[in-house]
């Protein structure tokens, strides 16, 4: 058959039944749009995660007590009491690569101000904690080494606490109570948003770890030591040195396993990225299913179309169409149908991604890659699902086909 006549005939045939063409293409439009949206949102979420990991602070390591596996499988080990305040101080003083180390003690307590109260996590940290987290203050000041040494009754509060206890008023200089212990608010943290795990990071209160250990939590061991290393290049060296120092301090024999775990920022990021990647795949496969269903719709319509146009096929065969010509005609028809759906899907997907990303506050991703894949996939869907109907048409007996009513 004349080559340029194939797409020409296909488009003519599709235009002969505009409504049906549009409705059929809708199956593909929705499928492709879903794929594009899901992939776009997944990438947006991934970028968001990355940014949050960066917000964790620069060149940060977390040291957990006991055994703690990557991905947090045996999280129970983290409760072991193996890390001490002295460990943290030793890390800072004995390892040159370590610029800051904060022994963390956390407890959930009710904080009272006037006739209001709020249940919030209270973190005991060192004076350089905000530097580790790269977290600026909005107003007031952070407690200093002196406050830590004296176990001063001072606190720095997060935005949520300001909202809940002070109803947005300036809390600096006010006194809040935790189990009867008066704490003077000396600083307010700038807003930080959601954490990787989805908790509100602004709902917290930070006090000197000395005050935390002695007056608030009643614990004697650090739950985490937050460590900041001088530079990214010295990360590995610092890790080795920290391991050696802690093993020595804990008196571990060479055949004993570490009674602590070190996680770098990258590892935390990896877990988070892995999670968002899995989510993206999950969403994309659901979208893929809807594309598949769209494909079945195409097959259905093409089958009906072949049956309906049996006489047309009969005539084409009678005037000299060969089987491959008929096969090609129907196949191209279904591919064009799918490509139309693909283009529609890209447009719809674009708007959906924009809208949802806007709503969720993520960056919207609309990659050329996803577009090419979507169009490729929809053409493949056209060939795959169009083949059987086209093959059926090409096998028709011209005599029977012409006689069909």
């Amino acid at each position, binding site marked *: *058959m*004349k*080559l*340029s*006549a194939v797409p020409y*005939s296909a488009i*003519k045939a599709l*235009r*002969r039944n505009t409504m049906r063409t549009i409705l059929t293409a809708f199956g593909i439009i929705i499928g492709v749009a879903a794929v594009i949206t899901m992939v776009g949102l997944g990438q947006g979420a991934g970028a968001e995660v990355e940014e949050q990991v960066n917000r964790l602070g620069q060149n940060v390591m977390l040291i957990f007590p006991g055994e703690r596996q990557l991905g947090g499988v045996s999280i129970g080990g983290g409760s072991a009491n193996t890390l001490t305040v002295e460990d943290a101080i030793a890390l800072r003083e004995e390892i040159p690569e370590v610029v800051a180390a904060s022994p963390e003690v956390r407890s959930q307590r009710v904080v009272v101000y006037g006739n209001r109260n709020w249940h919030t996590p209270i973190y005991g940290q060192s004076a350089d904690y905000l530097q580790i987290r790269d977290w600026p203050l909005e107003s007031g000041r952070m407690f200093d080494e002196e406050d830590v040494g004296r176990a001063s009754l001072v606190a720095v509060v997060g935005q949520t606490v300001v909202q809940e206890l002070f109803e947005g008023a300036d809390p600096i200089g006010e006194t809040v109570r935790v189990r009867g212990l008066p704490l003077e608010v000396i600083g307010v943290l700038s807003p930080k948003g959601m954490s990787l795990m989805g908790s509100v990071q602004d709902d917290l209160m930070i006090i000197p770890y000395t005050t935390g250990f002695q007056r608030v939590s009643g614990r004697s061991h650090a739950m985490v030591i937050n460590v900041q290393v001088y530079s990214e290049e010295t990360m590995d060296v610092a890790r080795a040195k920290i391991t050696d120092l802690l093993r020595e301090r804990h008196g571990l024999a060479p055949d004993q396993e570490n009674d602590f775990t070190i996680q770098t920022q990258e590892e935390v990021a990896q877990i988070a990225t892995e999670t968002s990647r899995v989510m993206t795949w999950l969403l994309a496969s659901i979208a893929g299913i809807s594309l598949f269903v769209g494909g079945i719709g195409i097959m259905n319509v093409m089958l009906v179309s072949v049956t309906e*146009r049996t*006489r*047309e096929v*009969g*005539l*084409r*065969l*009678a*005037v*000299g*169409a*060969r*089987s*491959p*010509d008929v096969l090609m005609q129907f196949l191209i028809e279904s591919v064009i149908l799918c490509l139309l759906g693909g283009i529609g899907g890209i447009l719809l997907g674009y708007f959906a991604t924009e809208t949802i990303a806007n709503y969720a506050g993520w960056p919207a991703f609309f990659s050329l890659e996803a577009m090419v894949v979507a169009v490729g996939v929809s053409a493949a869907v056209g060939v795959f699902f169009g083949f059987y109907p086209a093959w059926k048409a090409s096998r028709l007996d*011209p*005599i029977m086909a*012409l006689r069909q*009513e």
Partner: protein
Amino acid sequence: MHVLQLEGIERTYRTGALEVKALRGIDLTVDEAEFVAIMGPSGSGKSTLMNLLGCLDSPSAGRYLLDGGDVARLKRDELARIRNEILGFVFQSFHLLPRTTARENVELPLLYRESQLSWKEIREAASEALDIVGLGDRMEHMPNELSGGQKQRVAIARALVTQPRVLLADEPTGNLDTRTSLEIIDLIQRLNDDGLTILMVTHEPEIARYAERVIILRDGLIRSDRRRTPERARERIEAWGDDVEDALDEALQEATSHGDIDAPPASVADPVPEEVGIEQETGR
């Protein structure tokens, strides 16, 4: 010179254990520029013969020489090429593609030409064919904007566009009223005058008398094969005008004598039978 030659053609259909011999040994030669009508009662095998002649089907036994070559044993796609290059088809129910202009309908066979033509050549050939059938001014009309006779003219143009050796017409007037039938037959006769070989299946003796050779089939065999001087459809059409005027006068006189002021319209043309065709049209 023989354009087509059948020797001992048989066609047997098998449905399960049952065997039906539709054709039981047909010998037939048709020369260039002959106009042959094939007649016979239903079940006589004329459709089967037509399908074989049209290379839509292959015989169970026998030889079929078409334009010098044996086509009895050709494969499906080779037969398609023969149909495209040597044969032209006209059907009872026109078989025009719906919502496709007359010109595009006529272009269709050329799209399947093995030696590919340019769009310009295809377009010109289609215009030419439509001119021949007298529809040069209806090229961009859709089938549903054409009358039955015009549709059949488009179908004939489509058959002619490939410049075939043989035109096969299967009941070409079966869906047309008497007057339109005559016009189609007149067209076919003129094509025949220009040297085109024509084979036409019909069950109407009225139509068969315009052919110069009439073959009658019965039970899968040729029962008679006669040549005669055909009537000219053109003459009938010219005489028709007077007949219609006479009929009109008569009808008017009758109507006025009965006191009817509004004379009924002279419905010379029978309504065209409703088609279940691919045109899916709603009427004229």
